[in-house]
């Protein structure tokens, strides 16, 4: 299970592993400061944090799924589907009920419920029907993506103007200048970290990811815990959508494209083991911020061809992980 590919000489491990993603983050911040004086401006910081929130919230859930030895490729499409459905229903309700706060509340409830249900479907098929998570969620990824395209008739589903104005503050306003997505992200990150480290659920996730049989023999309800990780992830996708829809007020076939890869990358950059058995939510948060910052930094300067943005992103991601290569046990 754990086959610590012992490198020739033993290095002091623990500290580096803990510190590495943070160091990567700090390096990025320093680069940003050097590149552009506006980098540390309040506006830029809040922009970056707020836009990290969607992937961030999803990645928190992904941390649990991966820690328990699972995977979910469908989250991006799921987000698009949930957003599409939410908008469609809100528009319909606006027509029949005439808009207003209740419509928004119903929309939010619907998003949360749909996310939860989608997560439940993934989870139940993986745990009960016993389908390899990679394949199942690849399948549902295609299904949700198709469904949203179909709902939008190939185009874009847009929230009615009136509703959009009413709903907008959920993304753009907040408390003390800190917008809601940032607050929600922060709260969920803290709750996630506590759940992972200080509750039986978190511990059981790690145990299942480490050795499913051992967990079962220790009377951990393996299937239920695993199912729960997917339900949790689905619900978090719902929450992310609730934050996302007021930002753009629309959903289309391209909404949430590649979010799954970004979320998984953030989780792994944060030090969680891809094969399960160990996960840390705060690492995931750092991972998400690293990924967001790379994009932000590339926009701060233009010393390279935009064609090469992807290449720079790739290099930075790799470097961020090289810093902490000693953690990765199994690969």
């Amino acid at each position, binding site marked *: 299970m754990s086959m610590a590919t012992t490198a020739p000489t033993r290095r002091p491990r623990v500290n580096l592993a803990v510190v590495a993603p943070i160091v990567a983050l700090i390096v990025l911040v320093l680069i940003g400061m050097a590149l552009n004086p506006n980098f540390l*401006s309040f506006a830029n910081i809040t922009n970056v944090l707020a*836009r990290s929130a969607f992937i961030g919230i999803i990645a928190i859930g992904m941390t649990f799924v991966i820690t328990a030895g699972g995977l979910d490729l469908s989250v991006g499409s799921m987000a698009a589907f949930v957003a599409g459905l939410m908008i469609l229903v809100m528009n319909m309700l606006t027509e029949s009920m005439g808009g207003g706060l209740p419509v928004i509340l119903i929309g939010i409830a619907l998003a949360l419920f749909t996310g939860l249900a989608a997560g439940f479907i993934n989870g139940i098929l993986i745990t009960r029907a016993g389908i390899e998570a990679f394949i199942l969620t690849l399948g549902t990824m295609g299904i949700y993506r198709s469904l949203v395209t179909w709902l939008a008739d*190939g185009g*874009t589903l*847009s929230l009615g103007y009136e509703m959009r104005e009413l709903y907008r503050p959920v993304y753009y306003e907040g408390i003390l200048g800190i917008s809601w997505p940032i607050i929600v992200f922060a709260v969920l990150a803290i709750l996630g970290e506590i759940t992972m480290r200080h509750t039986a659920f978190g511990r059981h996730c790690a145990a299942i990811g480490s050795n499913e049989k051992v967990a079962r023999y220790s009377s951990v309800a393996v299937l239920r815990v695993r199912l729960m990780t997917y339900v949790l992830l689905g619900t978090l996708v719902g929450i992310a959508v609730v934050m996302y829809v007021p930002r753009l*007020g629309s959903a289309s076939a*391209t909404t949430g494209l590649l979010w799954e890869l970004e979320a998984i990358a953030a989780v792994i950059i944060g030090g969680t083991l891809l094969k399960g058995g160990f996960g840390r939510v705060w690492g995931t948060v750092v991972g998400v911020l690293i990924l967001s910052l790379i994009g932000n930094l590339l926009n*701060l300067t*233009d010393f390279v061809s*935009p064609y090469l943005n992807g290449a720079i992103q790739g290099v930075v991601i790799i470097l961020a992980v090289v810093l902490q290569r000693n953690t990765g046990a199994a690969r």
Partner: protein
Amino acid sequence: ETIGISIPAATHGWAGALNFHAERTVARLSEANPDLEFVLTTTSDPGQQVSDLEDMVATRGIDALVVLPFESEPLTGPIQRIADSGVWVTVVDRGLAQEGIENLYVAGDNDSFGRTAGQYFADTLDEGAKVVVMRGIASTVDNERVAGFEAALEGSGIEVLAMDHGNWNRDTAFNLMQDWLSRFPEIDAVWAADDDMAVGALAAIDQAGRTEEMFVVGGAGMKEMVQRIQDGDPTVPVNVTYPPAMISTAIEMTALGLTSGAPMSGEFIIASELITPENAESFYFEDSPY
């Protein structure tokens, strides 16, 4: 003075050409006007485009924005806020969901794109002719083009055998065309909503040895296609323009407005034209990558 430019990433031929023209124009203008600064970003989804716009405003302090919105609806709000903050906004190609936000609008006409091709079909094909339609990636652009095409066919008695997404991709189009060729014993013409897909379709038709049987009309004036029209290739009789160079026009006009202090506002809609063997010469650009 700083001009921000935000366009879709080069994920298919036309967008690639757009990138090419944008970069070339930026290079040319920066040389000519040393005090003009440009920020060029490319995006692959609307969410990221909004992020890029936010960054331009927060960290680069742009004075003018040239933007090709990835999707109209989601970008309307963010662009409106930028416009409200006093930044000059030029919108390219894809109109916003609300009128009156942008200062300058430079665009092709997707409806006309489809309609021009459809008109050609209606004019040249007999009643009862059978055609297949290759659509792009599901999006508003694609919907508009197809709607225009279908509207032009209305009442012509031409039968659309099948319609499916080739995703503006040569390989997908190749496979799709192969399968249609196995499925339909008779096809009189193919309309591809973009030249990349036409390339794939042509290769498949060529392979099946059915070049005599049908013609293919793509769109956007790819070099290769224009050349074939020029050569009088009966399989590729015409093409429809949708010039990626419109981004150059937009950037140039914006820059001119900033530097000369004589803002060029208004609308420039570039309707699609039919490229025929007669006029093909004027649509052939040797050094364009597209």
